[in-house]
């Protein structure tokens, strides 16, 4: 049993109880302050889509506060009032609930997890996250450092990479002050090597979902992806958990065991895109209606390819960060993502927008059009908010979409 398994939100979810090694994911998802303190490392908050390697290279422990605080507080504990606390702290009520809950939770120290500092990546993808940390820097007595990823434009590669390397070098110095450990060429190379283990694992999960058999439930896959953004409580431990899961699922495949989530002979294979949803039950709904989640691009930016381990690690890291799909203009991002989507052999795509989110929803029309044009498969756009808010309409849409496209 883990800390979250008694929570009201958890009890609403239908998980694959047969998948024994999934307990490891739940344990990591519910990692509490005590567990993190035991590592003896300084906790450094980070943005969901920035690589954790710099923090680990400095001997720290990366913490994706937006994802973790929200999953614990909103999804599991259903502590929705924290959104109001986020507004009290200074955010607009029109912000998306990931940021509202994170700010409300951290400002009130709701989880008891207190980062020693925050290294926030500013890029071309999320104003709200940046502003949330600007507000938090006023509420929390911790140092907040903004570092920057310049926009991707093939014509600006030379100076963009020069800029990014200078930014990373300054970030390393700042991290050294927080953790007391210098970032060296060796420590960065090691962090990259360990990060690549996680990337391989995530790619392996995607590969498992390419199978015609339903080997892994959509909700399990979603949770596996969500905890990947900070490698907590360290890449070695996370890799162990992932490896056990991969082995168990592969074993299922060999034994031709079908997980209990499936209920139809031929399910509609669905690829998820857009914003992460706080409505975890949506993943259950998709399967209840006869769909099968075969992939998602929520965290693809973190494992779209391995970071090269040949040559100077700083150069390799900078180049990899600059080319993360989330740093690209929408057209290029989707065109770069389509090969990954195709590999999952989807029959349809569902694009989620989170209420109040401005970035991905802002380009939703373009994403939809490019997918339809290049893949010729049906696309459904949905909008979700806090876990139990306005779920009926979404469920209805998803159900109708799957039924309509299953024949």
């Amino acid at each position: 049993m883990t800390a979250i398994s008694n929570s009201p939100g958890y009890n609403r979810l239908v998980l694959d109880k047969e998948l024994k090694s999934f307990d490891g994911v739940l344990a990591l998802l519910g990692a509490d302050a005590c567990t993190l303190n035991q590592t003896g490392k300084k906790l450094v908050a980070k943005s969901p889509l920035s690589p954790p390697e710099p923090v680990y290279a400095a001997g720290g422990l990366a913490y994706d506060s937006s994802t973790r605080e929200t999953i614990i507080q909103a999804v599991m504990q259903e502590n929705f009032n924290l959104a109001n606390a986020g507004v009290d702290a200074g955010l607009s009520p029109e912000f998306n609930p990931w940021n509202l809950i994170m700010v409300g939770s951290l400002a009130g120290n709701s989880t008891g997890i207190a980062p020693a500092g925050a290294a926030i990546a500013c890029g071309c993808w999320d104003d709200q996250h940046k502003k949330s940390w600007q507000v938090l820097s006023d509420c929390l007595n911790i140092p907040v450092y903004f570092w920057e990823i310049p926009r991707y434009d093939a014509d600006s590669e030379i100076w963009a990479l020069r800029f990014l390397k200078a930014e990373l070098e300054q970030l390393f110095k700042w991290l050294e002050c927080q953790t007391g450990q210098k970032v060296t060429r060796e420590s960065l190379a090691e962090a990259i090597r360990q990060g690549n283990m996680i990337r391989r694992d995530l790619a392996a999960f995607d590969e498992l979902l390419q199978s015609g058999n339903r080997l892994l439930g959509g909700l399990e896959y979603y949770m596996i992806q969500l905890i990947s953004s900070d490698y907590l409580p360290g890449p070695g431990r996370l890799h162990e958990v992932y490896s056990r899961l991969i082995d168990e699922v592969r074993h299922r495949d060999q034994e031709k065991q079908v997980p209990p989530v499936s209920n139809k002979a031929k399910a509609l294979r669905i690829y998820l895109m857009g914003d992460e949803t706080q409505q975890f039950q949506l993943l259950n709904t998709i399967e209840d209606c006869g769909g099968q989640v075969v992939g998602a691009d929520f965290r693809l930016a973190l494992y779209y390819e391995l970071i090269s381990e040949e040559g100077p690690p700083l150069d390799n890291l900078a180049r990899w960060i600059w080319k993360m799909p989330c740093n690209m203009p929408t057209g290029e991002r989707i065109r770069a993502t389509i090969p990954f989507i195709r590999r999952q052999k989807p029959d349809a795509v569902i694009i989620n927008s989170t209420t109040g989110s401005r970035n991905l929803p802002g380009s939703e029309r373009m994403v939809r059009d490019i997918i339809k044009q290049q893949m010729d498969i049906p696309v459904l756009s949905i909008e979700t908010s806090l876990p139990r808010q306005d779920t009926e309409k979404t469920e209805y849409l998803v159900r109708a979409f799957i039924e309509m496209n299953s024949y």
Partner: protein
Amino acid sequence: MNDDNRSILLAGLPERVERDSARIAQARKEGRKVVGYFCPHVPEELIMAAGMIPVRLAQGGDMEAVSAGEDYLKADSCPYARSCLGFRKTGNPIYTGVDAVCVAYTCDSMRKNQEYWAEYLGVPSFPLGITQTHDRLRSKAQSLEYFKNELNLLASRLEGLSGQRVTGGKLKRAIELANRIRDRLWQMFEYPADRQTPIEWRDVFRIAQAGFTMDRQEYLDELILLGERLEKINKESLVPDKRPRLMICGSVIAQGDDKVLDIVEQAGGNIVADSVCTGSMFSRKRVTLFGLVGNPMDALAERYLYNIPCPFMTDLPKRLSRIVKIARDYNIDGIIYYSLKYCDTWRAEFKAVRDTAQKQLSIPTLLIEAEYSPADIGTIKTKVEAFIEMMEGR
């Protein structure tokens, strides 16, 4: 201003659009290209030096344009961003009269604008990368170097469009013209610092906005004419204004977005200063060229990177101190904080501005969140009236 001597700079928006769009259409017939831009981080000097006509696309307050923009951006993105796309669709002659747009990578919505203009409106759309974390105090040399390279890239893209080289000489001449405009405009923005002013801020604001689409030389000539007329007015003969002195800061106040300004005026408030990107910001800082040997691109990078206080950047303390300085210089009694609905970056800084104004200046700040629709006029009016009444009682 006396109505009999009304400058063409103070003409209403429809009249200006008609006049300027006709001029633009004529110039295009003669083979000149017109380049639009939205945020003030794009140096108009570069467009001029490439032999093209710069126009700032900054109209708003039009529900038809907002709705048209929803074909691309969702209804919960800021109405200004939606309008930037919508005006092109509804056939606004200024927006349909551009051959290309330059879009600074500022907030999420403007970045999406760049993409939609290119992919859906079929207009060449040149992005301009601009750093968010630069800060003179932290002396990030890489930011200036990056931005200068981005300006060079933009220049080469503009050259490709116009077929004309951007030379140092052309750039210097364009900078000189823009600087002269800035100087003249700034003189006017300084008048309302005095209670006995020959021109009110609202009119200077209109004049600044008139410049967005006017021919630059003609605009300068008109500014000089008007300036001379204003200088002749004996300030001592003017009645000191007793109304509460307000500063407006926050989101972009586009041309045609008059709702809040009208309400404040009707409620008896007197806006005398601003910190909005369509107001005095353009004129606050010249492009400083050091003699004949100074590199004009260096000067542009320095001016446009460091002197546009937009909250997409992380340097909040600098923005706060600027607001405090303006409030002191203009002897402000209160701040109207204008946040367009769904403008995340400005809205998230309200609390910091309010607290700073209270702590350092002992003045109140009123948050007005508005869309372009008239539906919220009543609510805004009530809030503004109460705010002004409160200040009159202080």
